[in-house]
């Protein structure tokens, strides 16, 4: 459907602001594709290039091999009826009832009132708001408003749904229900969903692939598990920080760079990128840490069957010199060699000697950890 969405932008306005530098990527049919970036990264401009609400100043956007920037007014009307869109602030008409809001796109397209009503009611059923048809939007909660927004976006039976920060104005519970609805319609209607957000949790929840924008440039893209498990760009790592298990403050305070011969514990971060641990992380592999190890903090997420995450453990400093631990580290450093990263690490993970994809000694805590 979208094959080779390609575009490069100069800047809108006289001052030639670069909203988007040359950005090229493609989105597959039926995907839930996430675009993430900090505010001002150009996400919104990129999204609006798909339905030409903001035409790019250079480059091409191809949908089904048609360059949408070449469409005339009538062509644009047709395009926008095949591409639905929902918004952060819902953008429902306050003067119209829920039914009239959802039905308006059909009405202006000249569909007969009886058919408009039938289709609108079927969609309200789908989003679970059949009983609110005659209510005005002001009387609805945020989640209900977004459901109306979704129904309106689907009313022309589009092939693509654009989501502009669709859950950013909602509370966590409502966000979950809206994301579940998006996942359902993606599966049941075979709709391609393109969503932009600044919240990595949303990406993890629903997306199959993700693209990271920073300062109008594409800095990273790939399957969600890969980008989460092994982020390459600084911007990606910054966006992931809220979801990450950083060193807790009480331990960070006690941390010293070296024990200088005193007894104590080493604090080690084990990172699992998802490359080697497709089924999860076998607990047996952690045995290499020895009997004195303590799991301090962290977690593992399963994304698309890939186990990725970060565990912080404390091990007695003496363990660092044991044969088992050294072996695991060696395997690990081999595994990090470019080119054969996944094969080497994966090969060892099955026989239980590879501890993790990345092992990092963060520091030491002298004496005993409370």
């Amino acid at each position, binding site marked *: 459907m979208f094959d080779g969405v390609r575009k490069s932008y100069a800047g809108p306005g006289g001052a030639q602001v670069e909203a988007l530098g040359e950005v090229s990527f493609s989105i597959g049919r039926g995907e839930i594709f996430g675009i993430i970036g900090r505010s001002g990264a150009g996400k919104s401009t990129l999204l609006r290039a798909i339905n030409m*609400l903001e035409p790019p100043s250079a480059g091409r956007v191809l949908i089904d091999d048609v360059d949408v920037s070449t469409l005339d007014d009538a062509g644009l009307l*047709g395009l926008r009826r095949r591409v639905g869109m929902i918004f952060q602030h819902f*953008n429902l*008409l306050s003067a*119209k009832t829920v039914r009239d809001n959802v039905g308006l*796109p059909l009405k202006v397209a000249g569909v007969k009132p009886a058919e408009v009503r039938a289709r609108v009611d079927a969609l309200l059923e789908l989003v679970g708001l059949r009983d609110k048809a005659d209510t005005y*939007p002001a009387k609805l909660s945020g989640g209900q408003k977004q459901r109306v927004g979704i129904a309106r976006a689907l009313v022309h039976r589009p092939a693509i749904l*654009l989501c502009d920060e669709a859950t950013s104005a909602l509370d966590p519970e409502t966000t979950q229900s809206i994301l579940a609805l998006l996942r359902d319609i993606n599966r049941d209607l075979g709709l391609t969903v393109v969503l932009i957000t600044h919240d990595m949790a949303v990406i993890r929840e629903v997306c199959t692939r993700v693209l990271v924008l920073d300062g109008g440039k594409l800095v990273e893209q790939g399957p969600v598990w890969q980008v989460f498990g092994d982020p390459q760009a600084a911007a990606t790592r910054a966006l992931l920080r809220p979801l990450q298990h950083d060193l807790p403050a009480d331990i960070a305070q006690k941390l010293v760079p070296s024990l200088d011969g005193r007894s104590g514990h080493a604090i080690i971060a084990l990172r699992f990128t998802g490359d080697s641990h497709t089924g999860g992380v076998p607990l047996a592999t952690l045995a290499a840490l020895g009997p004195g190890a303590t799991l301090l903090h962290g977690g593992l997420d399963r994304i698309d069957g890939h186990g990725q995450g970060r565990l912080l453990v404390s091990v007695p400093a003496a363990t660092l010199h044991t044969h088992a631990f050294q072996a695991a580290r060696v395997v690990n450093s081999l595994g990090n060699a470019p080119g054969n990263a996944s094969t080497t690490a994966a090969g060892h993970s099955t026989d239980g000697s590879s501890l993790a994809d990345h092992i990092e000694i963060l520091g030491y805590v002298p004496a005993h950890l409370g």
Partner: protein
Amino acid sequence: MSLPILDKYIQAFLETLLMVSVSAVIAISGGLLLALTLTVTAGGGLLPKPRFNRGLSIVVNMFRAIPFIILLVAMLPLTRLIVGTTLGTWAAIVPLSISLMPYYTRIAQVSLNDVDRGLIEAARASGCRRRDIVRHVLLPEALPGIVTGMTVCIIGMIGASAMAGAVGAGGLGDLAIRYGYERYETRVMFEVIAILIALVSIVQFTGEWIARKVDHRR
């Protein structure tokens, strides 16, 4: 109160009603059309025409700057052209309409500009043409403000119609000046004022009621 006097009141009241209602229809429909034109052609509007927009805006401001009593006199040739006379109730309707049209234009324009741009974007994204957006988004969403503006405009018009006595238009204001001021019949003046207060209150309350009826924003 003797009957001929009562007749005078009724006649003056009807004249005021005629002047205000006909002028209001002309000024409000013309003003709304101008406001829509200004909103749509503004930079970032549905059909940006910056130079045309600036020109029209200047014309609107020019008419707003002219005091009604001066406009009344300056308009005399045009009035003669349109209604065939420069005296009487119908002759007052021309300057009244023209004076309040730009005033209402600005009031309506504020309401139209207040319509959330997100709503227009959503309408464009769902395949609405410009005329659909004007009809289904701009006008209905601005309606509460447009109605409130009408109330303000009509009340302003009731006030301005008093000055129309200068061209022999009659009406309540004329009655108050001729009897109350020139003949020192203070009672007539107070009675006219009481009628005007009642009239203005009715317009105000009706306007507020309608504005509430069409406002679904909360």
